[in-house]
């Protein structure tokens, strides 16, 4: 019997994604972002979160999806991974659910245009909802950014 975990659910387009709640520091409404020049396009800049400067990345951009206009629903999820604080811009975030670890399956090669290595797995909730669990340390892997850079360059 595997344990239950709490998961924050957010949306990019129509897909639903999940991040374990203990990796999430806070969820904020979109706030003014200061652009940081000479860096990757998906790094939107830095924000002031109660006195701490935190870089913000557009998760759509990070996964190579088309970037969307920000709306009222747009949220910034601040996550802490490997002592790095980073904000993710997502289309919306409005749910916390309990999930049994056993219900998470190994992901197929590509889900919703996102490569499998960014994913921990896919969980089926209820009858027709699929939740894509993110592998945060891979999403924030700096070495890979360098590779991306060299490909683009």
């Amino acid at each position, binding site marked *: 019997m595997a344990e239950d975990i709490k998961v924050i659910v957010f949306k990019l387009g129509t897909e639903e994604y999940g991040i374990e709640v203990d990796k999430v520091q806070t969820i904020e409404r979109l706030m*003014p972002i*200061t*652009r*940081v*020049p*000479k*860096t990757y396009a998906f*790094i939107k*800049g*830095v*924000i*002031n979160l*109660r*006195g*701490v*400067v*935190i*870089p913000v*990345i557009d998760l759509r951009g990070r996964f190579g999806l088309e970037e969307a206009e920000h709306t009222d629903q747009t949220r910034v999820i601040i996550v802490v991974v490997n*002592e*790095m*604080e*980073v904000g993710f811009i997502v289309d919306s975030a409005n749910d916390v659910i309990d999930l049994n670890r056993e219900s998470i399956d190994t992901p197929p090669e590509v889900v919703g245009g996102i490569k499998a290595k960014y994913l921990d797995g896919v969980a089926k909730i209820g009858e027709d909802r699929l939740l894509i669990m993110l592998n945060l340390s891979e999403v*924030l892997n*700096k070495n890979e*950014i360098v590779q991306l850079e060299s490909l683009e360059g």
Partner: protein
Amino acid sequence: MDMNQYLSMFIDESNDHLQSLNENMMGLEASPDDLSIVQVIFRSAHTLKGMAATMGFEDLASLTHQMENVLDLVRNGKLVMQEFIFDTLFKSLDALEAMVQDITAGGEGKADVTSIVASLQAIVRGEVPSAEGDTPSAAAPIEAETPALLDQFQFSVLEQSIQEGNQVLFIEVSLRKDCQLRAVRAYMVFELLERYGEVVKTFPPVQDIEQEKFDYSFSLYYITQKTAEEMQALIMGVSEIDKVTSLALDVESLSQLGQAAVAATAEAPASEPKRQDIPPPAPQATPATAPKEEAKKAPAKSGNAPSRTIRVDIDRLDVLMNLLSELLIDRVRLEQLASDIQSTELTETVEHMSRVSGDLQDIVMKLRMVPVDTVFNRFPRMIRDLAKSLDKKVDLIITGAETELDRTVVDEIGDPLVHLLRNALDHGVESVSDRIAAGKSETGTIHLRAFHSGNHVFIEIQDDGAGISREKVLKSAIKKGIVTAEQAAAMTDNEAHQLLFAAGFSTAEVISDISGRGVGLDVVKAKISSLGGNVTIYSTPGKGTNFSVQLPLTLSIIAAMLIRLGSEKYAIPLSSIVETGIVSRSQIRSVHGSKMVEFRGSHIPVVSLGAIFDVADYDESEEEETEIVVIRKGDKLAALTVQDFIGQNEIVIKNLGKYLPEIQGISGGTILGDGQVALIIDPNAFIK
């Protein structure tokens, strides 16, 4: 009991005491007759011993104990300080320091100190006049000469016993060093004694003996019918007893002791002439609290009472700083709101709050500042030892030790300064014979100065030695391929001197272990640059050399010029701005494909910040006139073009988080009054 929670306190306090020991020993060396300094040293050593024993660091305690013995003799005028004693005591201090460092690093504080202990004991033995009740004992020479004090009541009891025909014995028992349960052995001895007579008084007190608070020996006054020899034999019957001395007292010897007791009670406990290794029944509750009392008394006696302090984790100060900067942001918002609403009462309240938060900001900034003295205080000792090993005579004169710097800077500046000082002593100050030949006094002088100037603190190390030889420096630099012969010939003296900071440069002809190992001044320069500082050399041949280190007051708050590029705001550190101005576009010319502008008689490169940072909503090429900020790196200048100047501000430097890679031209971020983040420009990146 879990000692870990006390360990950090122990380490901090030990370091304080070691530092004070070092300082006072230096002071004593300068005026060996000043017995008040000996008192202070004695108390520091005593406190250290007490703490070490409480924490269970036996080696540390035993070494301090031996030092105390020597100091006690000096204090009581039985021993005159001389160079050998000083050297031995300094060596002991070094050993203590090494032990404390070992403890700091998680070790057990164990060290082989037998040779130092032996020489300390030799000093004690060599000069000790035999005290009453003294029986030379190799195992515990100190305890043996401990005259135990009797109060009036005990004295009269003993006197009466003698008159009634009983034997009054002074018995001293030493346990074997390998004795495991000392308290138990002591108990067995007492049990034996109670059978044949009455124990009047013990040293240390019975409670301490029961709690094993004694080294390996204890002494007592005892009333019995048996003779001294009989008792001695009986006690020796108990196992693990090393040695028993038993001395029969008559009325006369007793009355001598009694007088000593009266004399002692007449004086204040602090100036008690008797030794205090084993606490006599003075008003000292436990060894743990007694040293603290003494520690407080000691500085007061020497006349420079330190201000009362508490120790705070630097992380907490950082948190406080963060909270404060948020408060400042809210203050700006409130001020804006108040001016919009135009209510007198609100405006007054906000103004008051502004003043209070301004004061608060000052205090928080000051909390992070520590006097450079915390670095400087170890130098006199270092210079003394160095001068001795180099056989040079030198005075170190420190001025401005009270100058304050940010804690983070102070923590980092120690090693570079050590290097510069060693350098000054090794390469700067000449040997005694050379100095006399040059017509100088045989004692050289090294000035170590610290002072404020503007937003910087300067630390200067100036010697009155031979100065830097231009020829030697250039020859060495050419040989090492740092400059070519042609370049060298064209250099001014000053430029030649700065070559000392070039990587892989060392002029010492003989490599000594003091300095000149090739990893020299270039490392010093790199370290100082990394702190946002600068170091320059001024030297006059024959007169001496001056190393001037310029440091920022703080690493966390700087004065900056805020500028606007389109909708974006940036901050440029004021320390690298030469001046600001407006030039018309026609003044910017293209030279070899790069843009230059004339500035005060010379042409300097023009860098367009808007273009470099790809600012979307700002294009300066259409402007007739453009604002420029002239920045400097070393003696090179460049002009940055900007859209607008916003103004000058004190800004709190924040890093941009670990996720972002290094960005060329950006050194960090800061939070502005409106809560937005502005990036801080690193001007050094724009000048090659």
